[in-house]
């Protein structure tokens, strides 16, 4: 165990090309998926939070339920969609990085939506009313409300990133864990461990833990800032 851990640090700090490529693929697909998911998810979260319509509670229930959807199930659904005979088979995204990006986008969407919805709902309704009373258009009201709820929205984005970088099911099913192409941190850990190559698994685990610590640190800072702003208000 100690030998494997020491070897893991050595792999990380000696710049093992395979290892860092896996990390690069993971970061690239996760950030791309997140960037694709963020605009529609934040917009939908805002619209659901701000509007009263028939079936709203069902939509919120579904969005929150989607948070606990196993990523392997999302992976299975996307596999069926992207497989050669599936409705999106022509895209030829299965076992490719665009496929993983698509998967990460789907995985991140409910997290971003539910957290944005909660952040906007928690915001004082007078922000929107004041903007309206001062003559803001619908788009301007949205921008103002999202700005005032920016800590919550950023927390949503960070939580979304945490979810996509650490998920294994969807990346494995849609990406196929192909070396040098679609191997991500989590799929590589699963593979290396099954092969008894613990050092590489531990090294990638260290990267994941570091990312998790950074994400949570950023979240705590944001929550601290939001709390301080409320206290001052």
């Amino acid at each position, binding site marked *: 165990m100690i030998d494997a851990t020491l070897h893991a640090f050595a792999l990380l700090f000696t710049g093992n090309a395979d290892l860092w490529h896996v990390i690069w693929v993971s970061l690239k697909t996760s950030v791309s998926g997140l960037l694709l998911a963020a605009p529609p998810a934040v917009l939908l979260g805002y619209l659901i939070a701000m509007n009263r319509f028939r079936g709203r509670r069902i939509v919120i229930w579904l969005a929150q339920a989607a948070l606990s959807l196993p990523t392997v199930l999302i992976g299975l659904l996307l596999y069926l969609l992207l497989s050669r005979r599936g409705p999106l088979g022509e895209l030829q995204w299965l076992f490719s990085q665009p496929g993983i990006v698509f998967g990460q986008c789907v995985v991140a969407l409910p997290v971003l939506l539910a957290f944005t919805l909660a952040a906007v709902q928690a915001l*004082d309704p*007078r*922000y929107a*009313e*004041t*903007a*309206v*009373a*001062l*003559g*803001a*258009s619908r788009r*301007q009201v949205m921008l*103002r409300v999202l*700005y*005032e709820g920016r800590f919550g929205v950023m927390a949503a984005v960070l939580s979304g990133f945490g979810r996509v970088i650490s998920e294994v099911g969807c990346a494995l099913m849609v990406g196929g864990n192909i070396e040098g192409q679609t191997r991500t941190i989590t799929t590589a850990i699963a593979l290396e461990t099954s092969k008894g190559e613990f050092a590489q698994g531990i090294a990638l685990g260290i990267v994941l833990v570091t990312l998790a610590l950074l994400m949570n640190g950023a979240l705590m800072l944001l929550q601290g800032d939001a709390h301080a*702003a409320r206290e*001052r*208000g």
Partner: protein
Amino acid sequence: MSISIHTSISAAVYENENQRLRDERRKALLGVRGLRKHHGDRLLFDIERIEIATHGAYVLTGVNGAGKSTLLRVLGGLERAEIDSLRFACEDVLRVHPYPRRLREAIVYVHQHPILFSTSVAHNIGYGLQLRRLPKEEIARTVADAMAWAGVAHLEGHNPATLSGGEKQRVALARAKVLQPKLLLLDEPTSNLDGAAREQVIELIPTLVEAGSSVVIACHDRDLINLAGVQRMKLRDGHLELR
């Protein structure tokens, strides 16, 4: 002969009365007929008629829960209600929902506890002007004038979250004033203030009318109710009484 004189006097009286009504109608900034608001099954108010004169100042009183704030919010387009007819600045407003742009730009509602955006005092005051895409220099000049008017010039770059209740209220008044609204709806502007902060806000209100706005103030504050030149309205049992 006497019949002819009598007829011409009646015609003159009739014409005078008509002229008076026409003048009154011309002076009326806002005229609402048949305004009803329900909260669920409960009828909150059923107001036959509201007339707000151009450059008029009004206080709206009534017990807590009478619907004062709701009435101002309805007039300010923040809440919906049933309205039979609405006339604004001598023109009939045919559709009240969604709230017409023309009214939105002319009527400004200020909350009882105004909320300031988490930017700066100056940005808050200039926010409505930015929405109207005015030139930057004009916005800066207008904001500077408004800050001096409200006595908050020393707070220009401050984070609004650090302001006192009175300062927030004055910034909110300045933020509304820069838009030169035809009608300003103030919801209990002194309710959470005392001492000098309250007096400073009360002193600003007549100057809003002098600047050209009609003002309707929902309040319980005796000093506001007794301001010179202010007409009184009272919401009682769902009806509006003019005093």
